[in-house]
Structures are given as structure tokens and as C-alpha cells.
């Protein structure tokens, strides 16, 4: 364009005078429009209200009933504690968990537990958490000793991504459960039976002893009543089996093939890591696309020294971590074989956490200096977080002295 040789085009929308006049009136007219508006403050925000109902930061609960499921497993029925401000329970998707916040021996910690009741029961006013006592379980030992009817419990909103999605998953759902990994499948089974989810669920449930099977009678009954919606196969790894219709050993490819339409199913796996490792090997034979196999987060790693690339020479070491959290700066000890999150909790710094599996990112913190080990098979950090030294303390292990900045818990 050669502007100088060309006469400039000048637009006229209404008329030259009207256009220019309208321009000069822009500011005064806007002011007038403001002055004429209502002076009534806005009091409602329904979308944020719905967001808080679905995803409350905290739920104040209390135990209304305790059911002994097996020798080592109990179901805790939790109801809202209106005195502390929780009037109703957040609805959820079958398979989600609650992160409990508990003070154990004066130290504030969190633990995730899958909800075993159905979503519609949350609307009726309760969640069930079915918890198995672990041999050296820091929290479960505390729970067995302390939780009684009317004990108060603080939890997060429903969390996690281990749920059926009709746009993604096939209607034949195979749940592979080990031990207390059965809990999310009870919720899913109930949601399917209630007609909330259009799917058919086959559960392969591995237990080491007959006495360890949770929900045995209930599943048997439901299976009989809803044969087109639910099927359960117990797989027992003990030597002597007295129950009818059980498989023995582990959940092998042969067992999977015997009971499931492998090529037309979506597999959901929830159980201890050792079971997951076994099952995933078995499933490899079927060459299923990755999208057909979904797994619940592992939870805490118990044997980090066996992970690929972990520097074994630091195994016995305890390092120092200089922590900034809010206005507190503190130096704390940290064992190489325990996650940075555990070190923070031991020091009673009340750090944020939810999934404790490296996945949710709620504990995301800044590594100012030092080196950490993150297992390459469960590294859920974002690309830019890796670049700018943000890390997830729940799945990171100190392999030198560290300096870190941790956000305060919500």
C-alpha cells in the first residue's frame, strides 16, 4: 500500500456528524448507563455453590455405625456432622476415594480410602469406608484403637479418576480386585444395579484366605438377584479351599479368559502392587489397547529400593530437608527410603496431600536445591513442573539434603 499517493478512505457509518458525535458521547453515555444501574449487591453465585457441593474442600463427618466385615476389615458408616458445618455429603462417581485427615499421635496425616457405598447412598446421607487393618499400618492401627460410633472424621471431597466413563469404556466391565481393592467395585456394582450406570460388571476377586473375603455373602446375593448385571469369581491363593465355585491360585490369563469376553471388555484393576504387576503380565498376552486397562493409583510405595534407577547406596541414609511452609522455615530429617511427604508429616508440618500416589498433584511443591528420586513408572509431573523443579513430595525420595518450599494445606 502506498498511503501517501492514495487518498485515505474515510468510512461513514451513519453520517459524518453522527459518527463523530457518537464517539464523543461514548464516555458520558457509559457513565450514565452505570449510574442508572441497580445498586443492589450480588448475593448469589449458583455455579460456585454447585462446585462446592460437588467438590467440597472438606467434609466434616462422624461415624454412625461400625460393621465387622472380616477378622481384619471393618466398614465405617460416615454421616455428615452439621455441627461443624457439613449438612449434606458430596455426590461422587463410583470408584472415587476420600482423603481422610487424621491426627495420629499428635501428627497430622492423610490417607485415601475408596468409598464402598453407592453414590445414591451419599444423597441418602452416608458414605461407607471399608478398611482393612494393615500389619504395620500407621493409621489403620490407630483407627482400630480409636474409632468408635460418633467419632469425628475429617475428609476431602470425593477424589480420583478410577471410575467408569460411558464415552470411553466398554459396557462389559471386568473388575480385578485384590484384598481390600474390592471396595470401589462394591460401589460400582451398586450403581450398576441401581441403574445409574449402564454396564455389566464381572469381578475377579483375589484373596489369600477364605476368611479374608470381604462382602462375600452380599455379593453372592446380588449376583443371584441380578445375574445379567453382576458376576463374581473368587480366586483364592491358599492351599485349602472349601467354598464352592472358586478358582485357586492367582488371577491368570486362563482364568480371565474363562470368565470374560476379553476383547470386548474394559478392565479395572484395584489391589496391591504385587497383584497389579502379576495381572498386567497376564493381560499382556491379549494385546489389548492401553485404553482397555485402567488401574487405581497404587498408594504409597513400600519398597522404593527395588525401583529402577534408585541409588541403592543411599538406602540407609537420613538427609536434612530445609522446609519453607508459610512463615515457618525448619530443618527436618528425612530417610532416603521414605517419601518427602512422610518426612514432612513426621515433622508435623501438616503438608497438603490427597492421593499419595503421585497422581493428583495436590502436594505439588518447589525443589529449591538438592536431588530427589522419582520412580519413572509413576511420574505424573507436568512437563513444565519438571523443567522448573516442581515435584510431588508423596512420590519423591530424598537422595541428598534438600531445600524445598511447600504450600500450606487448604
Amino acid at each position, binding site marked *: 500500500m502506498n498511503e501517501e499517493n492514495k487518498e*485515505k*478512505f*474515510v*468510512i461513514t*457509518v451513519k453520517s459524518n456528524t453522527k*459518527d*463523530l458525535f*457518537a*464517539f464523543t*458521547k*461514548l*464516555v458520558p*453515555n*457509559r*457513565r450514565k*448507563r452505570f*449510574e*442508572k*444501574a*441497580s*445498586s443492589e*449487591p*450480588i*448475593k448469589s*453465585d*449458583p*455455579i*460456585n455453590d*454447585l*462446585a462446592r457441593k*460437588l*467438590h467440597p474442600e472438606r467434609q466434616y463427618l462422624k461415624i454412625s455405625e461400625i460393621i465387622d466385615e472380616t477378622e481384619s476389615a471393618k466398614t465405617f458408616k460416615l454421616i455428615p456432622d452439621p455441627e461443624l458445618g457439613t449438612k449434606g455429603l458430596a*455426590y461422587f462417581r463410583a470408584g472415587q476415594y476420600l482423603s481422610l485427615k487424621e491426627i495420629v499421635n499428635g501428627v*497430622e496425616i492423610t490417607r485415601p480410602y475408596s468409598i464402598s457405598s453407592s453414590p445414591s447412598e451419599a*444423597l441418602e446421607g452416608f458414605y461407607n469406608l471399608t478398611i482393612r487393618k494393615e500389619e504395620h499400618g500407621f493409621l489403620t492401627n490407630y483407627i482400630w484403637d480409636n474409632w468408635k460410633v460418633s467419632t469425628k472424621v475429617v475428609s476431602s471431597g470425593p477424589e480420583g*479418576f478410577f471410575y467408569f466413563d460411558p*464415552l*470411553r469404556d466398554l459396557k462389559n466391565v471386568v473388575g480385578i480386585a485384590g484384598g481390600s481393592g474390592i471396595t470401589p467395585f462394591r460401589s460400582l456394582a451398586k450403581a450398576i444395579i441401581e441403574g445409574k450406570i449402564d454396564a455389566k460388571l464381572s469381578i475377579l476377586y483375589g484373596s489369600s484366605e477364605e476368611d479374608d473375603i470381604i462382602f462375600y455373602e452380599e455379593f453372592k446375593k446380588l449376583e443371584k438377584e441380578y445375574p445379567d448385571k453382576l458376576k463374581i469369581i473368587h480366586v483364592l491363593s491358599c492351599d485349602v479351599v472349601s467354598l464352592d465355585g472358586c478358582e485357586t491360585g492367582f488371577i491368570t490369563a486362563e482364568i480371565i479368559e474363562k470368565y470374560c469376553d476379553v476383547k470386548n471388555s474394559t478392565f479395572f484393576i484395584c489391589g496391591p502392587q504385587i497383584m497389579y504387576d502379576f495381572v498386567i503380565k497376564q493381560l499382556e498376552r491379549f494385546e489389548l*489397547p*492401553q*485404553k482397555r486397562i485402567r488401574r487405581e493409583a497404587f498408594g504409597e510405595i513400600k519398597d522404593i529400593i527395588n525401583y529402577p534407577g534408585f541409588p541403592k547406596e543411599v538406602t540407609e541414609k537420613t538427609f536434612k530437608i530445609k522446609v519453607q511452609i*508459610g*512463615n*515457618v522455615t525448619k530443618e527436618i530429617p528425612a530417610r532416603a527410603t521414605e517419601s518427602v511427604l512422610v518426612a514432612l508429616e513426621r515433622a*508435623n508440618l*501438616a503438608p*497438603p496431600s490427597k492421593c499419595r500416589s503421585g497422581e493428583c498433584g*495436590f502436594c*505439588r511443591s518447589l525443589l529449591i536445591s538438592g536431588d530427589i528420586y522419582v520412580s519413572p513408572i509413576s511420574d*505424573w*509431573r*507436568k*512437563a*513444565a*513442573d519438571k523443567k*522448573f523443579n516442581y515435584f510431588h513430595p508423596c512420590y519423591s525420595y530424598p537422595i541428598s539434603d534438600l531445600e524445598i518450599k511447600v*504450600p*500450606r*494445606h*487448604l
Partner: protein
Amino acid sequence: MSEQNAEQTINDSYDVVIIGAGNGGLTAATTLAMNGAKVLLLEQHNLPGGFASSFVRGRFEFETSLHEMDEFGPESNQGAVKRLFEKRYNLNIDMVRVPEAYRLIITDPENKVDVTMPFGVEIFLDKLEEEVPGCRESVQKFFDIALEIRNAFQYFMKTRGRPDQQVLFKEYTNFLKTAPYTTQEVQDTLGIPKKAQDILNAYWCYLGLPMNRVTFTLFAMMIFTYLDFGGYIPINRSHGFTTALDAKIREFGGRIEYNTKVEKIIVENGKILGIETSKGDKIKTHNIISNASPTLVYNNLIYPKSEVPEIAIKEVNARIHGLAGFVVYLGLDASADELGLKEYSYFIMDGTSEKIYESWSKLQTPAGQATVCLNNAIPNCSLPGTSILFITTLFKPEVWFDVQPEDYVDLKNKIAKGLIEQFEIAIGVSVKEHIEEIEIATPVTFARFTRTYNGGIYGYEMEPWDSIIARFMSMEGDKHIEGLEFAGGYGSRGHGYNSSIGSGNVAALYTIAKLKKEGVLK
């Protein structure tokens, strides 16, 4: 509050407190910290960025909201954001140019269009002339005016919103004469053929107002800027540059606290005294830059309520809150090539902007979507044999008001399914069978993570009466509390990445000028 939390409380004083680490809050904090101010940036979420973020599901890292930034540009033609980041902040962000402006598909049988438009004003014009013979002259005039508008804005910035009227009238006549009008009015005046308008205006959904309502000035400038600079995106998703800004703020000595929600802005006699937070912090400051909207600040945060000026509430009430977002994020187990997706950016519309805007008032699959196949701009954004597709549409927030928690998932899945099918039919590809990961964000999701009023992702609607020019010329008149500035999508420049990034910088410059005048900064 537990014992630990009480110990961790922050009770310091700061030159400036910034509320919210969205794009505007981040740039405000960076500019202030760079200039030596003692800065505290507070964010209620545990990540920077607000809408400008990312999230990981399975083996995919999804972009939350950005389709393309328009004021970045190449080395040879640097946009304002590039200059701010690279020249001022010395911050290098890995950005790539997206391959084409857009592929526009209008499915309405009466006005069918399927065209892929290139970046570059001249080649865009050539292509448009090819599609609509005889439109060139009128569209050229449109671009000439758009360029004049951009120059006028630079003049406005230079004169800090106090332009010499003589210069305006002489040099920027077209800018003045089009300012009071809608895009429709001006484009009709220019005689741009209907079909050419449809193709030219595809970006309209980025502003979220139909052509018969959106201010011409901003709209014309937006199109021109996209075509002139090209669209750019960060390689590591929006989280890539917001985390880079986070690092820069700390490098300049600024402090950031996540998980910390401002609950009160303490005001006395029209002046800021400090803030209080959800963590029990009581922080002294005389200056606040708020990335939270005037709606939230004047209705919820100012304490005591008697310090809220009546006119501030009236201003909020006079305006229409912009639209809320709805996004379907898909991680697919087939490459873009295998799927047959050649373009990065798709606009699929079943009719006019008015018709689509209208469809956002109903709780059903809307009549339009803007969809991105990320791999066609960043080939390795996901593993080989996979791809990332995200479908964006909008809603008037109020249509979500009566949704019950137990119906929420089914509802969003139903709308998402409709959008996926709309895409499959329009492009002639099959997506559904490849879904490995899916996440659906609704207005509720945006509210959950950012606490934006009613889940809105766009600021106040930009009609001619409240156009950016009227806002610029009212800058001082719009300020009601000494020491309080706004940044972000609800600020004077309106929404969108460039606007919110720029607004934070401008708010910081105002605050720096004030701090200098007071002798706090040299």
C-alpha cells in the same frame, strides 16, 4: 485452624499484594518485582495460571484453555506479549506457530462453508477473494481500518489514555467513526458480502458475542492481530509459560503463596489497609492488584461493606458477565494422521453467530464449537500413535443454575457426546472409538479451580457502549478505591490471553508510578 497452621501464618507487610495468579496477576507480579517492589502474590489454587494451565491424565498432558495467542509473533514481527516476556522480563518461552488460521465449517445447508484460511493479511485476502470473488476491495478497507485502530491503540498507550483530541481527529478518523458501532454495522457499511463476512469473522467465538452486538474496534483489531502475527502456543501447554512466570517472579525477589485465598480486603476512608486470608494471614499493604473480578471484589471482598462505593456495585450490575466455558478433552489412541486430521484449529458452526450465541442459552449440545488438534502444531505433545483433541464451546452461566449434583455427570457426558458427534460428522472422521482418556470441564469446573464468578471465563461483554475505547478513556473515573487496580479478563482490556497478560503489566505500571510518587520506590 490447627496449631501448625497458626505457626505458618503470614503477618508481614508488602508494597503490593496481588490477588490471584492468573495471567494478569502473574504479569503484574513480575513487572512489580522486576521494578524492586516488595510483592506478595496470593493464589487460592495450588497452581499458577488460572484458566491458563494444564492437567495430566494417563499418558496425556492436556492444555486447559489456550487455542492460540495472537500478540506473540515471529522474531521479524514481534507482538506485545513477545516483547514483554522476552525483552522486558528476559524470559524465553518455547512457543510454536500454529500452522493455519483456521478451518471453518459452516454446516447450515443454506450457507455451507468449508474452507481453510491461512495467516498473513495478504494471503488471507487472496484466499478470501478466491472463495468469494469480488470481496477484496471491501475487505481490504476493513483491514485498513483495523490497522488504523491498532496504531490508534499504540497512540492511546503512549498518551496513557489521555490522547490529544486534535491528533485523534486528524490521524485516526476511521478509528473514531467506527468506535460507537458493532462489527455488523461497520461490515455492512463497507459492503462486505455475507459469505465473506462469515469466513472473515470465524474468530468471533474468542470474544463470545455475536456480530450484531460485539464492538467493532476490538473485533477488527483481534482479527488483524491474528492474521498479522500468526497464532502461537507454548510447547509445554499454558502451564509452561505460567510456571516460567512463577519462576521469574521468585527470581526477582517476589513471593508467591498457593492454597491461600484472600477473604477480606480491609479498606478505611477509601484507602487500602491490608488483606486477610483463609489461612488466617493478616497482611498490611496499601496497594492491591486484583486478578479477581470487580464483581467478586466489590460484592464479597471489600471490608467493611460500608467502604464499597455505590457506583462500583452499579458498574458491575450495568455490565453483562461474559460466557462460561465447556471443554471436552480427549486423549486418543490414534495419531492425527491415522485419524485423518490435517488441521490444528477447527471452527464448526451450524449457522450465524447470533444463532450459535442463542444456542448457549439452552442446556443442550450447542450449535458451535472451536476444536484443536494439538499434535498438528506440536507433533510430540503426546506419544507416537496418540493424539490430543479438545473441543471448546460456551454457555450462558445461568443455564447451569438448576443442575443437581446427581445429574451433573450424565448431563455433561450427554453434551460432550453431542459435540464429539458434531465434530465427527463435520470433519468426516471417527474419534469415539479411540478415546483413551476423557475429561469434561463445565462452568462448574472452571468455578471449582479458579473461583471465577458463576464459572465465567470471559470478562464483561464488550458491546460498543462499554468498548475498550470507552474503558480506556474512563480509566481514572473507573477507579474507586485508592491503591486498588484490576488485572485479568475482567479488567479494562477485556478477556483473552493477550489482554489479560497486558492488563497485569499495565496495572503494575500504574502501581509503580504511585509507589514512586509516594517515595516507596525510587
